[in-house]
């Protein structure tokens, strides 16, 4: 059961005044809302971590909620911010994992698989050319020329596809 916005606004106002009972209800309801929010975006194994990160951010930035405004758009803004942070982390881990074969052999556990699934979900929105260019150059670490030989795209097209693909992914994340 997700509470309506007016109720959440009241709870947030009471929490800002130090009411622990109201705060507990606010966090529990936010947890449930966040679970639904993230379920559409990341693999199940990552949801709890993201929820905890977001609740911690909510706790640290409780003063940034304006009781005159709606509550859920505020929570959604924080959730989106943490989601983008999470994607950056996943992307970095993925690049590091793939650029170091020795480490890859040791570290290819659950997190790496989850990171991969998350990236593949994002890649589903890209045309094949852009997806191949980003995967080969940005994730597998091939040079532009090697990627060009492998895909049959010209070197210029590889660069353009990387640029356009990354911009499209960024736009998708912004809208999320």
């Amino acid at each position: 059961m997700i509470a309506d916005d007016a109720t959440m606004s009241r709870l947030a106002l009471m929490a800002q005044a130090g009411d622990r009972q109201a705060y507990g209800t606010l966090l529990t309801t936010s947890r449930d809302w966040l679970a639904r929010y993230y379920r559409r975006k990341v693999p199940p194994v990552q949801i709890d971590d993201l929820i905890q990160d977001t609740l911690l951010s909510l706790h640290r930035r409780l003063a940034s909620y304006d009781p005159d405004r709606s509550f859920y758009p505020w929570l959604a803004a924080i959730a989106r911010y943490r989601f983008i942070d999470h994607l950056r982390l996943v992307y970095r881990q993925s690049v590091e994992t793939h650029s170091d074969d020795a480490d890859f052999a040791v570290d290819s556990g659950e997190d790496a698989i989850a990171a991969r699934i998350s990236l593949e979900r994002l890649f589903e929105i890209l045309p094949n050319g852009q997806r191949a260019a980003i995967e080969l150059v940005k994730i597998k670490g091939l040079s532009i020329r090697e990627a060009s030989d492998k895909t049959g795209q010209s070197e210029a097209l590889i660069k353009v596809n990387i640029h356009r693909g990354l911009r499209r992914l960024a736009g998708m994340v912004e809208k999320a």
Partner: protein
Amino acid sequence: MNTNTDDMIGRLVADLTPVRPLRQRVGMVRTLLAFAVSVGIVIYAIGVRADIMAGRPDPMFLTSSGLFLVLALASTWAAIDMARPSVGTRRDGWAWTATMAAVLPVAALGLIAIDLFTGQPVRTAPGGYECLAVGTAAGSLTLVSLVTWLRRGAPTFPTLAGTLVGVAAGSAGIFGVSLCCPQNDLIHIGIWHGGTVVLMGVLGRLFLPRVLAW
């Protein structure tokens, strides 16, 4: 639901202390005070323009400094509002004000371009470095005020927030300078006064996101 999350909620509830919500008007008053102090310091150090003192201000001065003042207020308002995130909130009013103020440097560059294309001696803009340096320094109080405010809040677009802080600080600083600078020349105002805002905006975009990230 994961018991870790429930445990964490319990700890957060136990850790709760009362907080004062960030109010837009409080942030605005704080920053306007910083703005006023920096303008006061510039006026004290350099002195007010002679035409203002004589009660006959130049129209070019009135127009350009008015544009910078409005840009300072609009970008300050938008920057302060970024401390309180909310999906679906539009904060693009400052961009229209910035576009209006951009007429000054664009017109100055246009005049220089006309001189170059028609083979006439290029009109110069004397004394610009001083305005740039003093304007940048004068904007630093506004910048510090905005950064401390945003660090208390939750800016979810640190790059845009950094740019806005830079533009607000640059336009506030150059507004103070314009009250003292004796020049009424469009090229001087467009290139050096406008350039101060652009420079601060770029610096804000480059360096502030790391400071504002949370």
